[in-house]
C-alpha cells in the first residue's frame, strides 16, 4: 500500500501559496494511491515552467526534461519499458506553444501515457506573459493592448489529433480531478488531461472565483464520452459555462503493442550480450 508519506519528498515547496499546482499534485498522488501503484513503477516526466518542479515534490521516478519535450521523452520511456506507468507533466506554454508539435503525434501513436497539462492560461515562471491558451484580449507585459490572437483550444486540438482519451479537470476540485486522473491512467493509450488552474501570481482573470462560477461536470449532464460530435461541441464551450470531466474516450490499439520486438517482453529486460549478426551480413556478401 502506497501512502502519502511514501510519495513525499524532503524538498521545500516553492510554488506560490494558493497555486493550482497544489491541488493538481495532491490529486495525482491520490490517484496513484487509489490505483494501488507503487512509487517505483511510476515515472514522472516534466517540462519547464512552474509545473516542472513537480518531480521534486513527488517521490516517484522522475525525468525533468527541456521545454516542450515531455512527450518524446515520455513516449520512449514507455517503449523501453511498458511495465512502467508514465505520467507526463507540462505547462500550457510547454504543451501548447513550444511543444504542440508533439501533441498530435503522441495522440495518433496512442502511446499509453497520461499527459497532464497544468493550464493556467499564463506564463508563470517567466513572470506573467501571455500564454497560448490566454484568451483574446488578455493583457500582460507582452500584450499591453490585450492579445489580438485567439487562444489555443487544447481539447479540440486533441480531439482532431485522434487522441483516444481527452479530459479537462479543475485544480480547485481535487476529488473530481482525482477521478479523472484515475481514469486517464487506467486508459490504455494516450490520455490528455488539461487541468484548469488559477495562477495567483499573474492571472487576474481566470481566478478561483472565475472558475467556481462557471465549471460544470460533464457526467452530471449525462455526457456520453463515446460521442465524438458531442465532445467537439462541449470542447467549444467557454463562457458562462465551462465543462470539466471526461470529454472523449475510445478504445484503440496501443502503440507499444505493435512493435514486434516488444512482443518478447520489455526492451529493458532483453539481453544484449552475444548478438549474432552473421545472418544479417549475408546480403552484403
Amino acid at each position: 500500500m502506497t501512502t502519502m508519506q511514501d510519495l513525499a519528498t524532503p524538498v521545500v515547496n516553492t510554488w506560490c501559496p494558493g497555486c493550482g499546482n497544489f491541488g493538481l499534485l495532491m490529486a495525482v498522488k491520490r490517484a496513484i494511491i487509489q490505483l494501488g501503484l507503487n512509487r517505483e513503477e511510476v515515472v514522472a516526466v516534466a517540462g519547464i515552467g512552474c509545473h516542472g518542479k513537480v518531480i521534486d515534490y513527488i517521490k516517484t521516478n522522475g525525468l525533468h526534461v527541456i521545454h516542450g519535450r515531455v512527450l518524446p521523452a515520455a513516449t520512449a520511456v514507455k517503449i523501453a519499458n511498458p511495465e512502467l506507468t508514465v505520467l507526463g507533466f507540462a505547462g500550457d506554454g510547454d504543451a501548447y506553444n513550444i511543444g504542440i508539435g508533439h501533441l498530435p503525434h503522441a495522440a495518433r501513436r496512442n502511446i499509453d501515457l497520461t499527459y497532464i497539462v497544468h493550464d493556467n492560461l499564463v506564463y508563470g515562471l517567466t513572470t506573467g506573459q501571455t500564454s497560448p491558451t490566454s484568451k483574446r484580449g488578455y493583457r500582460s507585459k507582452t500584450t499591453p493592448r490585450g492579445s489580438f490572437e485567439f487562444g489555443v483550444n487544447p481539447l479540440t486540438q486533441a480531439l482532431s489529433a485522434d487522441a483516444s482519451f481527452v479530459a479537462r479537470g479543475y485544480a480547485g476540485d481535487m476529488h473530481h480531478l482525482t477521478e479523472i486522473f484515475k481514469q486517464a491512467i487506467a486508459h490504455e493509450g494516450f490520455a490528455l488531461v488539461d487541468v484548469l488552474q488559477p495562477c495567483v501570481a499573474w492571472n487576474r482573470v481566470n481566478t478561483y472565483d472565475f472558475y467556481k462560477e462557471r465549471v460544470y461536470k460533464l457526467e452530471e449532464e449525462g455526457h456520453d464520452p463515446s460521442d465524438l460530435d458531442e465532445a467537439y461541441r462541449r470542447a467549444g464551450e467557454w463562457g458562462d459555462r465551462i465543462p470539466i470531466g471526461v470529454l472523449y474516450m475510445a478504445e484503440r490499439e496501443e502503440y507499444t503493442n505493435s512493435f514486434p520486438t516488444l512482443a518478447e517482453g520489455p526492451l529493458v529486460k532483453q539481453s544484449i550480450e552475444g548478438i549474432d549478426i552473421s545472418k544479417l551480413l549475408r546480403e552484403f556478401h
Partner: protein
Amino acid sequence: MRITGLMDNSVSFLIGGEAGQGITRSGSLLGKALMRGGFHVFGANDYPSVIRGSHNFYVLRVSDEEIWSQGDSVDLLLALNKETILLHEDELTQGGGIVYDEQVELGEEELERDDIVLFPFPLTAAVEEMGGIAIMRNTVALGAALGLVGYDKEIMKGVIADTFAGRDRIIEMNRQAIYKGHAHAREPYDESYPCRLEPSDENPGRILPTGNDAVALGAISAGCKLYAAYPMTPASPVLHYLAAKDEEAGMAVVQTESEISAVNMVVGASYAGIRAMTATSGGGFCLMTEALGLAGMTETPLVLMVVQRPGPSTGLATYTSQGDLLFAIHASQGEFPRVIVAPGDVEECFYLTMEAFNLAERFQVQSLILTDKYLIESHKSTEPFDSERVAIDRGDLRIMEKWREEEEYRRYKFSGSGVSPRILPGTRGATVLANSNEHTDYGYTTSESEKTVAMVDKRFRKQEALREEVEGMDPVKTYGDADAQVTLVGWGSTKGPALEALKMLGREGVKARFVQVVYLEPFPSRAVGEALEGVGRRILVEANRTAQLGKLIKLHNGLAFEHVFLKYDGRPFNPGEIYAKAREALG
C-alpha cells in the same frame, strides 16, 4: 585473380545516367560481382537532390590489393545517356573506353578526345528483344563491362540471383540482360579493350557494405534497442535499414515527427535503461543540440551519428563535408563532457559505433559519431564484421529486482571517477531522478553555490577519466613510413584518398605517412603529439574552409601547419590531388 589496368593495378568504372535509372544499385551489383572474384572494391556515388531526371553517377574502383577510394580517372565509362559521355569524357584515362547505347547519336566532332575507344552496344535493343523495361539497360551495360574486361558472367548471375531471391522473373530477365551485354562484348569487341579482370576460383568471403550499413550493424551488435530518427539525407539509409530489420535486430524503430523528437526519445529510452541511438545531418543536428545539453546535465548516455554535408543551412544536401567538427564539439549551451569519434572507413564505422555505445554507458556521456556523406554512402569491400571483437560494457549499470543497499539510491552519487551507479526505473526500493536543472546527488533541483560547483566538478571528473581512456585506445592511427619525408594529417573519410595518395607516393620512392585522428573529443593531445613528432613536412588535409582539425591541434598541441589542403566543393578528395600537394610541399 589477375588484373591488368591502364595506369596501375586498378580499374575504374563510372556508371552514369539520369536519377531514377538505378545507378547506385548497378554500381553495387558490379562491385559485388568483382568482390566475389577476389578483388577489393570501392564505390562512391554522386547525385544531386532530385528524384528523377538529373545526372547521377557511381564510380567503382577495383584492385587486387585493398583499395580505399576512387581514383583520379576512369577506365571504362558506362554511359546510360549521352549527357554522361559529354560530362565525363575528360575524366577518361588514355586508352579508356565508353560503353553507350548504339541508338545515341554521337558525332566524332562532339568528342574532344581521340585517345579513347568507343563501344556502342545495343542496350535498348537488347532490352526490347527480351521484353524488358527501360531500366534494365543498365544491367545490359553491366554485362557489357564484364565482357570487355573478360570477367566470368556467371559470378554476376550469382549476385543477381542472391539480390533478387524469390523473384524468379526478375532474376531471369536480369540474367538475360547480363548475358546479352556480355556476349556482345565478346563479339564484336573481343579483346579490343586492354583492361583485364580475371577472378580467382575462390570467393574470399568479404562483404560490401556502405558506411551507413556498417553503422547500423554496429548499433545492432552493440545491443541498441531503440532507433529513433527523422528522415534526412544522407543519414536516412540507417533508418531504412533498421526499419526493415527491426525483428532480426531486436530493435524498436521509430520515424519521429522531428529531429527534436528523435533525440529526446533517445534520452527517454536511455534513462529507462536501454541503449538507444539517432542519426541525422547538419540541420537536424542543429535541432538536436538543446537535448545534448539535457543528456549532458542528466548524465544520460546517448549515441548520435552526425553525417556531415556542406552547409550552412540546406547547402549541398547530397554532397560531402567535414565542416561540423567544431560545432559538434561545442553543440549545446554550457560545459559538459562528451565523446566525438570519426570513423574513416566502413570497418571503423562498425567497430567504433560499438565502442561509442560502450563509452556512452561507461562514462554516462554522449557519444557523437561524426561521419560524412562520402564515407556513409560509399561502398567498400571488407572482412565480415565480428561483433565479438568489442565486448559489451555497460559500465556501472546495475540491473536488479530490488535495491538492497542500506543507503538510499542516489542517481548522482559522488564518486572518485565522477560516474554514479545507474539502475533501471522500476527497481523496487529505489527511485531514479534525472534532472535538467542543476541538482543534488539525489537529483533534486538546487541553485546553491557549493552544490553547483560539486556537481560540475563531478561531471568533469568523468571527462578526465574519459580522456585517459581515449588516450589508451588508439585514438590516433598512423599509416605508411615512420621516417617520412611528408606526413598527411586528417580525420574521417579523408583516410581513404589519403591512403591511396600514400600508394602513389610510395611508388615513386617518397617516404610518406598518414596520421588519422580518430577520437576528436576529448582531444587525444598526447597521441597526436607523438604521431606528429619528426615526420617531415606536415600537410593538413580537411574537407572544410577553416581547417577545423588544424585549429584543434593548434589549441591542444601548439602545432601549426605550413601546408594546408582544404576542399569545400562538396566533392571527396581524389588521391591525385593529395599526392600533388605532397609533391608541392616537398618542393
